[in-house]
């Protein structure tokens, strides 16, 4: 490691860094704007100036930009030198010349990098007396608010949006000091990563629109370390609450997973927690069909009584924690516990687990994905099903660029130079999908194929890799797919991506055979398989294929052998055909539903119990890599909800369930779960237990500046209530406690003196994309411990008549998720269509966008709203998962379609974003 001298002191710094990075790593404060730890340097803002001396005798030195100057052994620098500091002060003064007088009404205030840097650089008084430049704002959709006056032209937004995230609809426009950062016209920012602008922009130009209209400063937010429940990636988040409402979600740095960026579903899709649809109390259906609020302990006693005398089935859920599912499994017994995942999906998950075990490949974290240098995606629409991974893939194709740069001894942080050098050279990425995807723009080869043909492509590539080129068929394969095999073989770290999204087990098997072939060639091969929900893998591992499948439950229902049905956080109408679920819920004598938001299943229940959301309880989720992670309660809900695992444990105790009698707290459940099977061993080590203290102190959820303690609830009583003691976690609902180095999984928010924005995270890191100083526990379930479910599924009949179409599953980042799609802002972005048709198919049926078609499938007929997708291959129709009616069709099945005659088109709904429109 080179040794450099800064202001007379010697420091050892990592090779290859620039001075700015090195200074921040050493804990020295140096102001900056355009540099970003994940995006490198372009040297445009001139804020990070330091003095560099030529040799030990040099007294004057020269001014250099810290972010553009590599460290060199023996080099001498000065931050505090008068010339450097006055230069920096002058720079910030000129950046601030046109800055509006907005801080009090700016949603960035209090976590504004510009405020921090202004103070740090020492600029105090505005000397400029001329007229300030002004700009008009744009309407950028329901998620992001635009206030262009505040821009300091650091170019970070476009560098993130276009260069890093591959967006095309945000750019720098106009010339000289008229430069404008926005879209070519008003409209929603199209990139699914647009929300990161809120954190990437060092000023208040881009802010969270939901927050702007119900604003709370960062110092007033109560936060806890959390995990995004939106998909199977498991990004780390830091949701903030005030007055019992979840106000916003910010990124929580995890070097393995999300790094500095989240997707828009994670950032904006959590405010369903404040929804009006929250179940308000424990309710029992009365004779008139409405629910009466009842005493919860009476309800629990009644339920417990029912348990001992009747046949009980419990249906769990892949969208909630391991602990909740484990509690349910213990309550009803393993043979009566169903994962609540549809038949088709269970088979796919099994195939994935089998693939992981057989292929011998490594399962990469999103960070490791970024290092892979040849990628083949088989069927999975990653941008819609595991959005954060799409961003990692966009970095992975840059490996070619970094290699070229390295050849010229250009450091990887030399962003502009690297991009200029490589132009459009990319590491190879191949995509096979039945329709166009949002990654097409970075793909070297795109194969528009039906799922079964994707599988064929996979097998062909596998045999090409294996080198079996005997028959003629292989020759045509080589023509078509030879370049894929070649690229994978040439790569140092090839990556195959597939998942349950394509709903064809043979595709997953094909992915597995390619990886096996590569492993056999001695390659360091990676295999990434995507699941559809936050805990799909977790619940499958918990079940181990022992419990009944959903269709088995339907059969039991038809034989009238179910007396009590407990459904936990699962809307069955989204999992299976309506008539089947109807029958089941009617057949059971008593249906008990625990859930967060009201839904169709709740409407059919006899007893409904309000469950806590992810932001109000702790729980462990297992992501697509098998990594277990814990989310902690951010706040106490004002609803009478409790975590599902708590309700279930209570019922278990009343009915003297001997396993559950000993469970006193979350840690007990967690420990029991860890001990229950060898697969889940270790999930209690995911985060420190409730007794964890640093110097006898808990970790505060509130910043030390949290205001209003003696007035927040003074309207109810002037006698301040004692702060709730959090006996379940090492965190406290308080501003007092330990806020120094903490384990990564216990960092509720980041702050450091002088650094109020999220940029303060560098004070907690070792190096700019490095590990957290407080350490981090990484619990990953080893592939060899994965247990496959034994369930086998009959393959669905594929009728390939001419009128027949093959149903393929399609996903939407906004809309497919059951809960996220109930968040304000996202609601507006959800489309209502349920089926996508190729143009030819639509022409044949004589339908256009918004019309209805009747689909005749295995489960009878259902009317669906049409959207035309010109990229879809013509014998496939896309069934958009999570949309009305979509659950009536099994992906993979053959369908015939007719135009629906009595379909009523919805009147066009105009976006109701009044404030967004008005403030422009």
């Amino acid at each position: 490691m080179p040794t450099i001298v800064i202001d007379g002191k010697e420091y050892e710094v990592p090779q290859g860094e620039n001075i700015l990075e090195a200074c921040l790593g050493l804990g020295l404060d140096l102001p900056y704007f355009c540099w970003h730890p994940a995006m490198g340097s372009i040297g445009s803002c001139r804020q990070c100036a330091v003095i560099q001396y030529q040799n030990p005798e040099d007294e004057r030195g020269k001014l250099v930009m810290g972010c553009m100057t590599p460290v060199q052994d023996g080099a001498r620098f000065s931050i505090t030198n008068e010339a450097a500091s006055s230069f920096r002060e002058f720079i910030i003064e000129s950046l601030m010349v046109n800055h509006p007088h907005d801080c009090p009404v700016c949603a960035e205030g209090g976590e504004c990098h510009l405020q921090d840097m202004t103070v740090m650089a020492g600029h105090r008084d505005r000397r400029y007396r001329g007229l300030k430049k002004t700009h008009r704002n744009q309407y950028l959709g329901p998620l992001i608010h635009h206030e262009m006056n505040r821009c300091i032209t650091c170019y970070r937004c476009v560098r993130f949006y276009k260069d890093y995230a591959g967006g095309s609809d945000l750019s720098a426009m106009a010339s000289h000091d008229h430069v404008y950062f926005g879209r070519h016209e008003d409209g929603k920012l199209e990139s699914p990563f647009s929300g990161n602008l809120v954190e990437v922009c060092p000023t208040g130009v881009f802010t969270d629109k939901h927050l702007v209209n119900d604003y709370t400063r960062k110092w007033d937010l109560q936060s806890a370390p959390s995990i995004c429940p939106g998909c199977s990636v498991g990004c780390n988040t830091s949701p903030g609450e005030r007055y019992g409402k979840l106000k916003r979600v910010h990124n929580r740095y995890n070097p393995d997973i999300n790094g500095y960026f989240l997707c828009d579903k994670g950032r904006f899709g959590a405010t369903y927690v404040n929804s009006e649809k929250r179940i308000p109390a424990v309710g029992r259906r009365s004779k008139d069909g409405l629910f009466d609020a009842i005493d919860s302990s009476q309800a629990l006693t009644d339920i417990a009584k029912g348990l001992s005398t009747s046949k009980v089935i419990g249906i769990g859920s892949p969208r909630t924690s391991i602990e909740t599912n484990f509690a349910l499994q213990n309550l009803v017994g393993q043979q009566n516990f169903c994962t609540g995942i549809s038949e088709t999906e269970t088979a796919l998950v099994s195939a994935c687990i089998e693939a992981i075990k057989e292929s011998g490949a490594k399962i990469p974290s999103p960070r490791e994905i970024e290092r892979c240098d040849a990628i083949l995606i088989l069927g999975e629409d990653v941008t819609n099903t595991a959005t954060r991974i799409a961003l990692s893939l966009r970095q992975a194709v840059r490996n070619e660029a970094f290699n070229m740069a390295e050849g010229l001894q250009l450091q990887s942080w030399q962003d502009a130079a690297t991009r200029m050098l490589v132009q459009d050279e990319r590491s190879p990425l191949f995509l096979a999908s039945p329709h166009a995807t949002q990654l097409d723009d970075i793909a070297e080869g795109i194969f528009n194929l039906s799922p079964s043909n994707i599988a064929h492509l996979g097998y062909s590539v596998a045999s090409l890799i294996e080198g079996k080129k005997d028959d003629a068929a292989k020759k045509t394969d080589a023509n078509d797919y030879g370049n894929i095999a070649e690229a994978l073989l040439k790569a140092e770290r090839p990556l195959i991506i597939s998942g349950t999204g394509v709903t064809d087990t043979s595709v997953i098997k094909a992915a597995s055979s390619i990886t096996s072939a590569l492993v056999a060639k001695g390659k360091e091969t990676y295999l990434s398989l995507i699941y559809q929900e936050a805990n799909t893998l977790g619940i499958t591992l918990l079940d181990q294929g022992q419990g009944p499948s959903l269709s088995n439950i339907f059969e039991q229902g038809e034989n009238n052998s179910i007396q009590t049905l407990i459904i936990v956080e699962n809307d069955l109408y989204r999992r299976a055909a309506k008539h089947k679920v109807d029958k089941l819920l009617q057949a059971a004598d008593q249906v008990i539903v625990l859930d967060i938001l009201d839904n169709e299943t709740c409407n059919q229940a006899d007893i409904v119990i309000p469950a806590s959301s992810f932001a109000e309880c702790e729980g462990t989720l297992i992501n697509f890599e098998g990594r277990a992670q814990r989310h902690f309660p951010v706040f106490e809900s004002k609803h009478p909800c409790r975590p599902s695992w708590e309700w279930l444990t209570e019922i278990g105790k009343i009915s003297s369930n001997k396993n559950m009698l000993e469970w006193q707290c979350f840690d007990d459940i967690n420990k029991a779960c860890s001990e229950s099977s060898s697969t889940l061993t270790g999930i209690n080590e995911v985060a420190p237990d409730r007794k964890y203290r640093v110097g006898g102190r808990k970790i505060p959820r509130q910043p030390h500046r949290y205001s209003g303690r003696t007035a927040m609830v003074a309207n109810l009583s002037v006698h301040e209530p004692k702060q709730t003691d959090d006996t379940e976690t090492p965190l406290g609902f308080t501003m007092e406690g330990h806020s120094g180095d903490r384990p990564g999984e216990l960092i509720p928010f980041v702050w450091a003196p002088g650094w109020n924005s999220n940029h303060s995270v560098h004070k907690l890191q070792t190096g700019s994309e490095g590990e957290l100083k407080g350490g981090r526990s990484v619990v990953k379930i080893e592939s060899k411990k994965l247990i496959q479910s034994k369930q086998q599924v009959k393959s669905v009949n594929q009728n390939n008549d001419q009128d027949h179409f093959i149903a393929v599953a399609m996903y939407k980042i906004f809309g497919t998720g059951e809960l996220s799609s109930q968040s304000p802002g996202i609601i507006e972005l959800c489309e209502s269509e349920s089926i996508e048709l190729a143009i030819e198919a639509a022409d044949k049926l004589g339908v256009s966008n918004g019309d209805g078609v009747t689909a005749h499938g295995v489960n009878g007929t259902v009317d669906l709203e049409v959207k035309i997708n010109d990229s879809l291959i013509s014998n496939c129709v896309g069934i958009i998962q999570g949309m009305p009616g979509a659950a009536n069709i099994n992906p993979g099945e053959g369908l015939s379609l007719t135009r629906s005659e009595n379909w009523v088109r919805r009147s066009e709904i105009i976006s109701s974003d009044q404030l967004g429109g008005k403030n422009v």
Partner: protein
Amino acid sequence: MIEAFVSQIRTIWRILLHSFTKAETVQYPEQKPYLAPRYRGRIVLTRDPDGDERCVACNLCAVACPPDCIALQQGTREDGRWYPEFFRINFSRCIMCGMCEEACPTNAIQLTPDFEMCEYDRQNMVYEKEHLLINGTGKYHDYNFYRVSGLKIDGKDKGEAQNEAEPIDVKSLLP
């Protein structure tokens, strides 16, 4: 010893002399003392010269308050202005330090020369916005935050605030 004795005597003599000076005590409450306008008493929320609520719900007063006795929630009005949906001061906690007034960037929150706010019931010391908001500008008559700020509100377009130039035409390439 002698010194101490003399000192005692001198003190007694001085106290005695006070019997002949003018009394400072006033017959409160019949007689009110003079309190300067900047006296730090009961807090009010004021209006700007145009008669609109001054407070923009920036939360700076709340964070400056040592006993944390201010709580509020921001909202955005139809006309684009930020305002406090509720604004609460718990006067049973307030120490009349004036930090809130000092922090306020809009001159909205001001302390007034009124200290007579005793209550038998402490709950009555909790003031909401309707109790705090007065119909005037208080001590500072001219300041109107929205005339200075760059935020667009109804009646003040971009470029119409003090010292602002016309909004830039992005499509123009002229210098």
